[in-house]
């Protein structure tokens, strides 16, 4: 998130820039983990999976750094208006990124298990889900970097596509399991993977709402249509 470089106390601007840089770094790492965990599954590449699992620890560490920085800034600067919104949003965005990395790590672990079973056609459809999530994440990180509220709205609307894809995938898996009960173990893992990706989309939506709030000071209404009764838990 860019901050105008005109605080009378210059170190305050530095604090905000550091915070923004940390979020940017976390975002980049969360993206890499999402990509690697998907590739670990598609390419049956255990090294990529282990790499994703390892990288998640760095995201956790960054999340802790963001939290410490936010607490420190709140205590020392007592921020107001846009500064306050940017700082509170940073805390929430960091939490969402931590969750995204965590879901991806979980997917990497499941990939390691699935990869020990014979290859399945069903694995490939995960790519489409993951790509939508990757695009959402990439897009929202760009919107965050550029204070772009309009893009944030678009990204949030994309979550619906992901929900529909997930619902389709859910049915596909069910059909598969009914036809071949030996596939149940792998299919169950795939279902969790798909569900995790769908949750990643929700976290991207969450980030989008925070970017929008930080930039504009207004809350996006929660009137986004929910197409999928299967994921209607919220």
């Amino acid at each position: 998130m860019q901050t105008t470089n005109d605080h009378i106390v210059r170190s305050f601007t530095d604090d905000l820039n550091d915070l923004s840089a940390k979020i940017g770094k976390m975002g980049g790492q969360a993206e890499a983990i999402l990509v690697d965990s998907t590739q670990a599954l598609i390419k049956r590449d255990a090294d990529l999976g282990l790499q994703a699992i390892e990288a998640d620890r760095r995201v956790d560490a960054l999340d802790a750094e963001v939290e410490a920085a936010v607490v420190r800034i709140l205590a020392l600067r007592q921020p107001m208006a846009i500064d306050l919104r940017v700082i509170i949003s940073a805390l929430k965005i960091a939490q969402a990124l931590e969750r995204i990395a965590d879901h991806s790590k979980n997917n990497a672990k499941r990939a390691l298990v699935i990869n020990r079973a014979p290859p399945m056609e069903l694995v490939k459809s995960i790519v489409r889900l993951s790509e939508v999530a990757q695009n959402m994440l990439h897009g929202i990180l760009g919107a965050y970097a550029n204070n772009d509220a309009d893009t944030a709205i678009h990204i949030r609307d994309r979550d619906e596509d992901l929900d529909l894809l997930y619902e389709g995938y859910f049915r596909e898996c069910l059909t598969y399991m009914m036809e071949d009960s030996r596939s149940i173990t792998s299919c169950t893992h795939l279902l969790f993977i798909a569900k995790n990706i769908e949750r990643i989309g929700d976290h991207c939506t969450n980030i989008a709402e925070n970017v929008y709030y930080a930039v504009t000071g207004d809350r996006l209404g929660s009137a986004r249509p929910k197409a999928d009764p299967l994921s209607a838990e919220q």
Partner: protein
Amino acid sequence: MADGERFNMEAAEAKVLVRDVNVFYGEKQALFDIDLDIGRNQVTSLIGPSGCGKSTFLRCMNRMNDVIDGCRVEGSIKVDGDEVLDAGIDPVQLRRRVGMVFQKPNPFPKSIYDNVAYGPRIHGLVSSQDDLDELVQTSLERAALWEEVKDRLHQPGTGLSGGQQQRLCIARAVAVRPDVILMDEPCSALDPIATARVEELIEELKKAYSIVIVTHSMQQAARVSQRTAFFHLGVLVEVGVTEQIFTAPRDERTQGYITGRFG
């Protein structure tokens, strides 16, 4: 700012209606076309950079500008419908209804008791010594000072600490049962504990009075007030619900000021 927002207070909620107020010190204009509602049983805070006209505005409401040579006030200020700026109005009576607490505590060089009793006496608010004693006590209680001074009521008010003196001045303001209390940076000379006491007191006082407070502390404005008005170069730039002003101000100048940016 949308004009609608400035006027959107329900008539019953507004204690003071300020319309089109312009103030001049000689040739120099200090306030420009000020329109503002002061809510009943609410705290309104006035914020803005030094010299923007906050004290000038506060003084308009109880005609304290009258005593300043060359100061001219135009426009309309109504307290419960009564025009404050009418030439015919008695400033002494007005200042009973619209009390003021200044930045620097300014107790009279009299006893603690007499500081509080002075106003009720000259305004003839009580008829017996017992009533006066009671009024002094309740006023000091309201100002959260009674416990600290009840055993030395006849010692000089100037012998109290700064924070105690400020609460004494608040007790003095409250003693004449005003409708509106104006406070000009009442905590600027106080430590955090005394400041917290005064803020707690403001919270308490707003049940019975309408309060306008000038403060340079954004945090204080955010803590104590329901509405906040931002002044800049003699202009009322933005007024709104305090939470909105401090989380999402509409005007760039407000944002610049409260976030500590160059204007």
